[in-house]
């Protein structure tokens, strides 16, 4: 039991103090296990499908799913492209062994390469997006008829828009979307995810040598702290700079949040009639039958 004294004092925006990001992992685990169990049932489903990449986000997601639904009701899909590493396969297999869920390997090299075979000068981002959507289409296929696709995008990725729309960002429910990467690692350790998986540099493996932090140009640790104070505690960018946060970093993050907001919302529907889906036809998704 942590002492209430930990919470004494003002939470200050300080680029060198990551303590505000600390969470109660026991409570979070309980809430997320209940969330998966309850929302799967409310969707009229009983199994979960998780794309298991060997990374920490999907490791946490699949571990929570096993706890919520039982490993016998969880299907993990490892969907390597030819650039995917052997280490990723090893980590995915290790998780399946440890947690007891069924893991299927469905390579996506053939279909992705066939699609791009006669196209010239394909930018690697297009290749990456195609791979992400290919994987998701397989997860959705394998979810039929009674499975729900679990999302693995964490809060940092969602806020930065660091993901492929209708690709890795697509899902039925997302248990980890309100956890910053730093917090998600804390939960991973609490869940007993092997340290090697928790600590390895995050990568989407969309091309060889890619790492999230290399591509973004900043670390998750730095981004999480800026996002926490900006989003959770509603500080303005100028206030963060006043408190010693790097101006370039703050401006860049603020711009990524703004520019990618479209990825976080449903597509816009042109309003014409008296009542329109998404605008003023507002029903809860968990609307139950009498």
């Amino acid at each position, binding site marked *: 039991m942590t002492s209430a004294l930990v919470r004494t004092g003002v939470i200050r925006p300080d680029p060198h103090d990551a303590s505000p990001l600390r969470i*109660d992992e026991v409570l979070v685990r309980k809430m997320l296990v*209940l*969330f998966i169990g309850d929302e799967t049932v409310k969707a009229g489903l009983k199994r979960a499908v998780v794309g298991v990449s060997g990374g920490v986000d999907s490791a946490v997601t699949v571990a929570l799913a096993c706890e919520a639904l039982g490993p016998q009701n969880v299907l993990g899909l490892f969907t390597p492209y030819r650039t995917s590493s052997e280490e990723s396969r090893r980590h995915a297999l290790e998780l399946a062994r440890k947690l007891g869920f069924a893991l299927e390997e469905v390579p996506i090299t053939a279909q992705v390469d066939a699609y791009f075979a006669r196209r010239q000068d394909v930018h690697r981002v297009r290749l990456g997006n195609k791979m992400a959507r290919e994987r998701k289409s397989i997860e959705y296929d394998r979810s039929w008829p009674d499975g729900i696709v679990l999302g693995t995008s964490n809060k940092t990725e969602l806020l930065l828009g660091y993901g492929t729309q209708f690709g890795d960002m697509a899902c039925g429910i997302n248990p980890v979307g309100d956890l910053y990467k730093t917090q998600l690692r804390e939960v991973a350790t609490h869940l007993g995810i092997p340290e090697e998986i928790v600590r390895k540099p995050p990568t989407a493996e969309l091309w060889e040598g890619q790492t999230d932090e290399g591509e973004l140009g900043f670390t998750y640790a730095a981004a999480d702290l800026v996002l926490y104070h900006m989003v959770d505690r509603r500080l303005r960018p100028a206030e963060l700079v006043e408190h010693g946060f790097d101006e370039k970093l703050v401006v860049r993050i603020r711009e990524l949040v703004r520019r990618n907001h479209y990825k976080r919302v449903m597509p816009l529907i042109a309003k014409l009639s008296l009542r329109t889906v998404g605008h003023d036809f507002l029903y809860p998704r968990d609307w*139950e039958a*009498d």
Partner: protein
Amino acid sequence: MSAVRVAIAQCAPALGAVKRNVEMHRTWITRARDAGATLVVFPELSLTGYYVKDLAADLACSPDDPVLAPLAEASRDLDVSAGFIERSPDAKLRIAQGYWSRGKLVHVHRKVYLPTYGIFDDGRYFGPGDRFDTFPSAGGTAGVAICEDLWHVSTPYLYAIAGAAVVFCPSASPGRGVAEGGDLGTAESCRLMDRFYAQYLTVYVVYANRVGHEDGIAFWGGSEIVAPDGTVVARAPEFDEHLLIGEIDLELVARERARNPLLRDERDDLVLRNVAARLGLPLEHRD
């Protein structure tokens, strides 16, 4: 015997499924009766679910609607406090908490403070109530504060100075705030309120919160009964369904008020004069 056995049905209503929820209520009422309770309190909107959005109009009914008849019927054995959407004769929709006793609906409180910020959108779908009336309940003179009503200090205050011995707080409180080193953020706030109001207004606070999920939001439970001396009489677990049983002892209210006569010494006339002056209202002066 001044002690009354009170039950809180910490349940998970189905969103938008009134008939199923009526059946669910009957089950919990039976359980409460079997546990020897003379009163059972259900959470806010226990008959409809909370985040009803546009369903509000479909689910609303008048207090004498036949759909609520099973509650009246069940109240022949023990008193029942349950939440529904009331459609007024002039077609206004309100979040309501009914109190049924001896086969009849004897009191309805309409939620006054409709949270419309953050994760709440009550004010979009409902109109506010405009009264804080006390009424005789199985647990003594009572007032009802539906969820956000209790967050406004004036609500339990008005009930206490009007003579309430107990404040019922049916809630649909979403759990949030998972920082290290404390309780669930919402739980901390609610427990602080319950205990503060109980101890400083010398009333019982009966906090009935729901559990379950609606559209990704978890209701955290943690229902409790807090006595006028600040003692937590009973507390339900967080997040799980639970029938909580505890006693309200009116003798304890009397003893506590004798020891700690804050209410006796309360100057509600000063409060009234102060507020009236601020609002520029004429106040008849009597010597």
